[in-house]
């Protein structure tokens, strides 16, 4: 009997040891590690650092409010990995966060090209990943179990632009009939144009001009002349900052009238540098598809959201952006799941995230009405907003629920000759 009993003691001892180890973090209020793979250097560095600031601000806030209560007040500890905006680095950083840092969950990585392979690593290690910023459709179309996306996918962007046209048409009875498209000729612009074309056909809009432009143009006279010749009611634009700047400036110089305006899908028009480089009359009445509700801070009185905005501004030196908001939102979604799972076990945490149904609170800082994932991990309630540049500010005009009571969209937009000071 000596043998088995020794075995039993050993078993008992090891069970206790494991028990202590497992319970240890909760008892000692030790931290829950969240790994964020973000482009902190390289081409998308500004975006990555904005997301980082948002995530840190939210984590600080959650910790100050007593941490994760279901884990005896355990604090959130955000560990960052720098993807350098590159896919291969993103993959190795993800491996490091999972295996070395032993994080409970992951978030990241803005660049679709990085997120796409990095989430494959997370799936393999059965570690939940909350996607921040990436819009590539296929990220949540692979039947993965551990990948969740709070924000839009690319097809939503195109649909929303036409939704806004439809909404304004319904409100005023004035509907544009013809649309011209001008977009940058690489992955983002082309896929957006293809999506727009698909939706436009169903909704009775005529695409009269379909023009791709390679990035870094030195002149848009030729394209503007084509738009002049095609006489569209509205133009849908997908260009990055330098090209968008040049296009907008030349459009203003040529005083090209578009009765239902310019509808930009972001890119240049979401970049603060864009507005610094142009006089206000060049951007007046331009519609912008935003990744978050740009005038949220003017419209909300939620103290936690305003505090996050304040803290990120302190860290970055400039105001809140869509990316800071998305970082903060991801932390609140994870905190919510941790409260419900009551465990840092990746499997349990994954199930809790999958069961998320958030309808209020700071997780909705980006302006969504609800966060609830479908079986592919896509938040089907995600939406951007469409804003219009009115008196030097971008004000939300779509969806109607997010439009401020004092915001009056200008539709159709006035001709250049009717505008003041031009």
């Amino acid at each position: 009997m000596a043998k088995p009993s020794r075995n039993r003691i050993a078993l008992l001892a090891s069970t206790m040891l494991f028990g202590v180890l497992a319970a240890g973090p909760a008892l000692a209020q030790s931290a829950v590690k969240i790994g964020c793979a973000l482009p902190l250097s390289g081409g998308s560095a500004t975006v990555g650092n904005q997301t980082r600031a948002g995530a840190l601000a939210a984590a600080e806030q959650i910790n100050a409010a007593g941490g994760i209560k279901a884990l005896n007040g355990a604090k959130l500890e955000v560990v960052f990995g720098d993807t350098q905006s590159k896919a291969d680095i993103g993959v190795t950083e993800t491996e490091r966060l999972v295996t070395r840092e032993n994080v409970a969950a992951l978030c990241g990585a803005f660049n679709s090209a990085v997120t796409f392979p990095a989430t494959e690593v997370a799936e393999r290690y059965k570690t939940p990943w909350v996607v921040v910023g990436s819009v590539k459709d296929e990220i949540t179309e692979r039947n993965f179990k551990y990948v969740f996306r709070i924000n839009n996918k690319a097809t939503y962007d195109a649909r929303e632009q036409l939704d806004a046209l439809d909404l304004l048409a319904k409100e005023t009875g004035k509907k544009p009939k013809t649309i011209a498209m001008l977009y940058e000729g690489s992955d983002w612009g082309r896929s957006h144009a293809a999506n727009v074309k698909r939706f436009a056909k169903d909704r009775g809009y005529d695409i009269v001009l379909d023009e791709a432009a390679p990035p870094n143009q030195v002149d848009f006279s030729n394209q503007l002349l084509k738009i002049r010749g095609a006489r569209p009611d509205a133009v849908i634009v997908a260009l990055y900052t330098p090209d968008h700047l040049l296009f907008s400036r030349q459009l203003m110089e040529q005083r090209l009238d578009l009765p239902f305006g310019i509808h930009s899908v972001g890119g240049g028009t979401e970049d603060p540098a864009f507005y610094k480089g142009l006089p206000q009359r060049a951007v007046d009445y331009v519609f912008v598809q935003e990744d978050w509700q740009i005038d949220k801070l003017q419209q909300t009185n939620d103290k936690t959201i305003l505090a996050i905005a304040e803290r990120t501004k302190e860290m970055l030196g400039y105001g809140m952006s869509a990316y800071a908001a998305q970082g903060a939102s991801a932390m609140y979604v994870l905190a919510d799941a941790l409260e419900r799972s009551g465990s840092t076990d990746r499997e349990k945490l994954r199930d809790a995230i999958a069961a998320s149904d958030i309808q209020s609170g700071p997780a909705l800082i980006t302006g969504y009405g609800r966060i609830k994932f479908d079986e592919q991990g896509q938040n089907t309630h995600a939406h951007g907003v469409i804003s219009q540049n009115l008196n030097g500010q971008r004000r939300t005009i779509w969806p109607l629920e997010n439009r401020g009571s004092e915001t009056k969209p200008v539709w159709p937009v006035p001709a250049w000759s009717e505008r003041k000071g031009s």
Partner: protein
Amino acid sequence: MDPLILSFAVVNGVLLGGIYGGVALGLSLIFGVLRVVNFAHGSFLMLSLYIAFWCWSLLGLDPYLSVFVTVPAMFGLGYFVQSVIISPLIRRERALVVEPLSALLLTAGVFLVLDNLALMAFGPNVRAVQVDYYLPSPMLGPIPLNPQRLIGALAAVLVALGLSWWLRHSHMGRAIRATAQNRDAAALSGINVPFVYAVTFGIGCAVLGLFGSLIAPFMPISPSIGVAFGIKSFIVVVLGGLGSIPGCIVGGMVIGVFEAVASQHITATSAAIGSLGLFILILLVRPQGIMGRA
């Protein structure tokens, strides 16, 4: 096709093409004299754009007045690059002509260093000059001419004429042309060849300084802006004839009009491919270019 739209396209093409030609002048001059293909051409333009921008944003200097800063500054930079970086290479060469490959690689290195230094120093943000006055658009019949581009195109023609005249009639100009014809013979006749080279490189860059100031009012500036102009300049110079000053302006306008008219029928992307096709065709059929001597 609508004749009004067509004439619009031709006018746009001539104005833009003139600017292309003006920007390419320095490249053509430097090649004509030094036989060095300056790969860093676009980067020098990028630097002059930044100088014009900083003059405007820090000193409040109008971009057109910043000419008085950009031209001497770029002349100095060009003189320095030639005498410190490229000249040792030429001194090492025993043959009549600098080995084009090594000079090409050297200037390609200068291009990489300059563009990346600019990225480090200025960041990837796009900047743009905003002037608060409004230049009226002169009308050509029913067609309004963009005043800033008109100034650029006119300046290109004037600079080309002035440069040709100066090369023909001044002592220094004759020394430059002599050096271009035969380096060793020029040296034997008492011409200070390294000095001529440095001055030529400096003039090439000074012309870029001028155009940096002239296009700054309408061109968004980023560290990668040089590449787009650099490639256009190569096409223009080959089309017009390597080393030919008037050929540069003619080549620029041909490319400008070709792209403007073609892009009314096909996408502008395909039109740009067309001009590269034209580039290859010229190299095959008439390698000396439109105005070049065989």
